């Protein structure tokens, strides 16, 4: 019986294979060494694995588009850019979360291993050339993060967060799958390039089915990136999950979902831009509005940042919906900036969180009087998120709005700018609390700042300032990575 193997080029997925094997090895180490020393070893090993994987990525990446496994796995400069972002988005939170995990008695090997597998799922999504690979990568990532969200299993709110995320995430997966089956039913294929060829041609009477499938897929993605009106889970999950997990899932899965969205929208549904652009515009406007208005009422800083991330997703969707090269590049820049602003802010939140104090915005009262440097950094990240020049957050928004104006979507840009101004209010409120209010008498803000924490705060702080002043380099990278789609 002849068996036809597809073309297999394993060097393309060397980083993924390495992470999978290292993850399993670390899992075995977790089982054998249950003492504190073993846990430190696993944590260090996880960080080492991600660093090595980044090196492998850099040296094995193909800048020209190369596929393997019959088109199921793609390697190109876009994948390289997105994967580098994802590795950074996984590495930085892991670096700063060790003290927090120890304080809350969840410093376990499984935590690190699950983070690795979540990253692996994200990497697979960014390289997917087929709906099957995309969906499986998504499930690998989501399943790991569901467990991480519930990791403080004796804490009621953490369990609730995990369960809520799980149930709504499964619903989203179901909707996504239904969309994929409709597309498969119409086109008879799940490979992006084949779908592209199919929708480029005459759809006969299948136009409605393709559109319905595409919209269901977009809804599934909207759940995953927490775009309004599919954002309901985000504030609860962000608040209930352990803060280190919130820091992780505020960045890594978002980058992965957007990477997959690029693949779906550009590689599969590129010719249908006129159909999906209005859907994205609708989601974008609603997201920036919800992000700006609902955040004002929040007193918990994790909930506030959840709404803030919904707003950021809105700006990113504006850039995507434009459909021009500038728009796509703007989104790539925005995503890079988003990682560093968010991780920076979460590093400080992780640091200031002691014995259940530190999640409320009022807990930051008078921080500037006691720890001026920490307060300065927090203010820096808040200003950047608000989009105040000359910080990186401003550059991200600027490019997105420029792209929208250039494509003639002036109304969309104006709505974005208006809500950006509204949003600035709640970021600045945190700054006001830190600088102009007196500290509560019993709060002294005394804490050790470990070396990894210093490192991450330094890197994120410098990034936010330097990219704000010299954004050319990152824009060049974005341009190179977008060349994969031509």
């Amino acid at each position, binding site marked *: *019986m002849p*068996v*036809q*193997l*597809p073309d*297999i080029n394993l060097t393309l997925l060397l980083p993924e294979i390495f992470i*999978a094997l290292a993850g*399993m090895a670390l*899992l075995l180490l977790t089982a054998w060494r249950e003492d504190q020393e073993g846990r430190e070893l696993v944590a260090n090993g996880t960080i080492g694995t991600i660093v090595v994987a980044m090196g492998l990525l850099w040296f094995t990446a193909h800048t020209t588009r190369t596929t393997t*496994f*019959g088109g*199921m*796995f793609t390697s190109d400069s876009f994948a390289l850019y997105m994967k580098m972002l994802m590795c950074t988005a996984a590495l930085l939170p892991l670096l700063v979360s060790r003290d927090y995990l120890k304080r809350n008695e969840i410093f*376990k090997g*499984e935590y690190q*291993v*699950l983070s690795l*597998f979540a990253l*692996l799922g994200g990497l*697979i999504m960014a390289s997917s050339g*087929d709906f*099957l*690979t995309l969906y*499986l*990568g998504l*499930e*690998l990532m989501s*399943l*790991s993060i*569901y*467990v991480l969200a*519930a*990791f403080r*299993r004796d804490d009621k709110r953490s369990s609730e967060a*995990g369960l809520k995320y799980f149930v709504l995430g499964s619903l989203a997966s179901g909707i996504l799958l239904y969309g994929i089956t409709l597309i498969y*039913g*119409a086109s*008879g294929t799940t490979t992006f390039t084949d779908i592209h060829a199919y929708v480029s041609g005459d759809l006969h*009477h*299948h136009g*409605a*089915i393709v559109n*319905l499938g595409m919209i269901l897929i977009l809804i599934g993605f909207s759940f995953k990136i927490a775009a309004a009106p599919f954002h309901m889970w985000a504030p609860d999950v962000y608040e209930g999950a352990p803060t280190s997990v919130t820091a992780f899932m505020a960045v890594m899965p978002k980058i992965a979902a957007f990477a997959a969205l690029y693949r779906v929208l550009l590689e599969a549904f590129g010719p249908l831009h006129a159909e999906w652009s209005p859907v994205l515009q609708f989601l974008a406007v609603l997201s920036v509005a919800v992000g700006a208005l609902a955040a004002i009422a929040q007193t918990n800083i994790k909930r506030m940042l959840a709404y803030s991330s919904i707003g950021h997703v809105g700006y990113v969707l504006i850039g995507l919906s434009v459909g021009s090269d500038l728009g796509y590049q703007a989104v790539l820049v925005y995503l890079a900036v988003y990682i560093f602003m968010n991780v920076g802010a979460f590093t400080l939140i992780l640091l200031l969180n002691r014995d259940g104090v530190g999640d409320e915005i009022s807990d930051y009262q008078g921080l500037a009087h006691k720890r001026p440097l920490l307060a300065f950094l927090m203010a820096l990240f808040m200003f950047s998120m608000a989009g105040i020049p000359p910080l990186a957050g401003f550059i991200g928004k600027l490019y997105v709005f420029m792209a929208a104006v250039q494509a003639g979507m002036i109304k969309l840009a104006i709505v974005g700018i208006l809500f950006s101004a509204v949003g600035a209010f709640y970021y600045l409120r945190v700054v006001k609390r830190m600088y102009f209010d007196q500290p509560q008498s019993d709060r002294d803000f005394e804490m050790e700042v470990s070396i990894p924490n210093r490192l991450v705060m330094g890197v994120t702080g410098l990034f936010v300032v330097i990219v704000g002043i010299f954004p050319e380099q990152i824009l060049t990278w974005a341009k190179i990575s977008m060349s994969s789609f031509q």
Partner: protein
Amino acid sequence: MMVADFIFFMFAAVVVVSALMVITVRNAVHSVLFLALTFFSTAGLFVLLQAEFLAAILVMVYMGAVAILFLFVVMMLDIDFTTLRKGAREHLPLGLTVGLVILLEVVAIGMGFHQSPESAAAAAALEPMNNTMELGKLLYTKYLFPFEVISLILLVALIGAVALTLRQRKDAKRQDIHQQLARKREDAVQLKKVSSGEGA
């Protein structure tokens, strides 16, 4: 052809009715049993499509394992489902309207579906093949990469289940051979000088 049609409609009707029963009956145990019936009738539909391998899997895995596991969980949890459903009644009209509109749209779109001559020809060409063997061949060739990713997903599910539920019971007397062998004389034996007439 008539017989096949009759069997199809019979199974299809059972699927729809039992699926409805799953979400409407009050007793959670009955609900799970109806779920098993839904799985079984779906397996019947698969047989009609000559996908006997899928049908067998559905019966063995979903009915034999998943549904029965559900049954155990439902019996053990002792949830008062009537109070859980109170909120649902208020939102029923809105939910029904939205659901109905979506259903109508999907049906309207589905009506427009026609099988192209190419796919009909492809389906005819597949006729003499053996399902199980073809599935196996595909899994290990064309779909090798997704297949491997699935194994990772199952591993994550396993880690998750253990990480979230395993508890070392403090009161259980577990034998730790390593600890027993590592025990030294100094840890276990104390020498005490006992003065006469007072005891230890």
